């Protein structure tokens, strides 16, 4: 695979904490690649019929949802690991923790941790900076 290349655009923005205008960077987002385009690209690159890719992708995501939402972590080689995490307010005692769990539950979310292989690819990405 070719080395990636991203553009970081710098724009003047007001920084609230010291009330000054500074150039702040943000990665330029190109188009969002749709589900259909991803399938078409994968099918063309690998020489696999689109129907097979769609079928496998649907089955893969269903399986990933099922496992992640049942407390397993799912590791996809060269991509990363998906896992579920919760944020609950701490409690002084075990009894208090159980009794107030529903009120103290703040957030349940799916997290993604990139694999070392992907991190190595990210580190090799060429970064271009643009002002304006």
């Amino acid at each position, binding site marked *: 695979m070719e080395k990636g290349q991203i553009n970081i655009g710098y724009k003047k923005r007001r920084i609230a904490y010291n009330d000054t205008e500074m*150039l702040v960077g943000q990665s330029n987002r190109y188009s*969002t690649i749709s589900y259909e385009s991803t399938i078409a690209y994968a099918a063309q690159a*690998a020489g696999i019929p689109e129907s097979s890719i769609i079928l496998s992708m649907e*089955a893969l995501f269903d399986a990933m949802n099922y496992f992640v939402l049942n407390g397993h972590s799912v590791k996809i080689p060269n991509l990363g690991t998906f*896992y579920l995490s919760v944020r609950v307010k701490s409690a002084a005692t*075990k009894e208090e923790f159980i009794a107030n769990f529903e009120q103290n539950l703040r957030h349940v979310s799916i997290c993604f941790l990139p694999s070392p292989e992907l991190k190595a*690819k990210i580190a090799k990405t060429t970064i271009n900076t643009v002002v304006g």
Partner: protein
Amino acid sequence: MGQIKVKGTMQRVAMFDENRVIGHVMRYSPMKENDLVSYIAQSSQIPESKIIACTLAIREAITFFVLNGHHVDLGKFGIFGIRSKQKAVTDAEQVNPNLVKHLTIGFKPSAEIKRAIESLRIEVEV
């Protein structure tokens, strides 16, 4: 509908400087690619070789687009995109790629997954 267990364990919390009960999702075994492929093959009747080839193709497509600054929408699963953190500067002449402190890939779950998370059954254990 999914079901998870949250386990409360006593841990020192620095800001209170005391031991308090903190909740963590109880993790079961990590599902590796082989486990996932066998599960899919069994439940969908797709040959394992085809699933492996398709998974590889999808993975390569995601990596290619994301590392070139695109966001990739994976339908009912979520969106992948690149995230960066960089230092702010006052002068345009100071702008250079070395200001980028951190570059990573972020994942935003789809609305469908968020709904599934809301209806999760959570058991508490201490």
